[in-house]
């Protein structure tokens, strides 16, 4: 099973999409019904500095929905893993 982050196709969330584009082992599917789909096998990690998201957005970065579970969500880093 893989890990997924859905991202609403709204301007303020575009840094998430841009970051996913360059990540090894991550597939990015263009919006359907308004949501991008960022997917990886096993684990997905995001760094706030690399994304350049301001604080309010970092703290709602996953609001599009996820498949998987959060193993870390700090001010600097988000790590999602497969459901066990």
């Amino acid at each position, binding site marked *: 099973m*893989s890990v*997924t982050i*859905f991202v*609403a*196709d*709204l*301007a*303020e969330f575009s840094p998430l999409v841009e970051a996913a584009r360059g990540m090894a082992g991550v*597939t990015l*599917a263009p919006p*359907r*019904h*308004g*949501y991008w*789909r960022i*997917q990886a096998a096993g684990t997905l990690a995001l760094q706030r500095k690399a994304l350049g998201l*301001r*604080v*309010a*957005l970092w703290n*709602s970065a*996953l*609001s*599009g*929905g*996820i*498949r*998987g*579970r*959060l193993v870390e*969500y700090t001010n600097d880093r988000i790590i999602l893993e497969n459901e066990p």
Partner: protein
Amino acid sequence: MAESLRLNGVHHTARPTWKLKETVEFYRDTMGLPLIHCVSARGWGADNHPDFLHFFFDSGNASTIAFFYYLGTSQPEHLIHHPRYDSDATHTAWRVESRAELLAWRDRLEGRGVPIMYQIEHEIVESIYFRDPNGYFIEIGTQVRPILPLDIADAELTMRAAIEEEQRRLSAGLGRLQHVEAIYQAKGAALEALLGAAP
């Protein structure tokens, strides 16, 4: 053709105050909102209703902010505004039409000694926050981008996921929602059902 019933903006919101002079000076002079109406009345209606002043300041676009000043009363403990996130959830946010105007308000208020607590760009609004003499939390914001059809659909999806997940938890004896992760997961499951599993 059926007429649709809709509201047309704010006439007034109202709060109690026990600081008459400070409140009038803040809204009328510091903020520059015209004082446009004042009711001065003998107490009536409810039992033991005190005599009162009920006064209104023009906050633009035909909206007002109003206060009640109850004569001969002291502020009850439960109406003292405690500066905490949950008390501050009750607040007034006024709209300005550009970021330049927002910054001009920031300058005006700071120039008159009102500390700006935060300036935050949220998803759809950028705002400054400050307090009035009662401690009430006040916001002035400017819309960052228009509301899009996706905002509306996304809000509906989030609410549905949150309510369904909470109902599921309550049925299972787990209590109300505790963490936002459960909402993200419920929404992700709903979206995967809608979009199908990825290729």
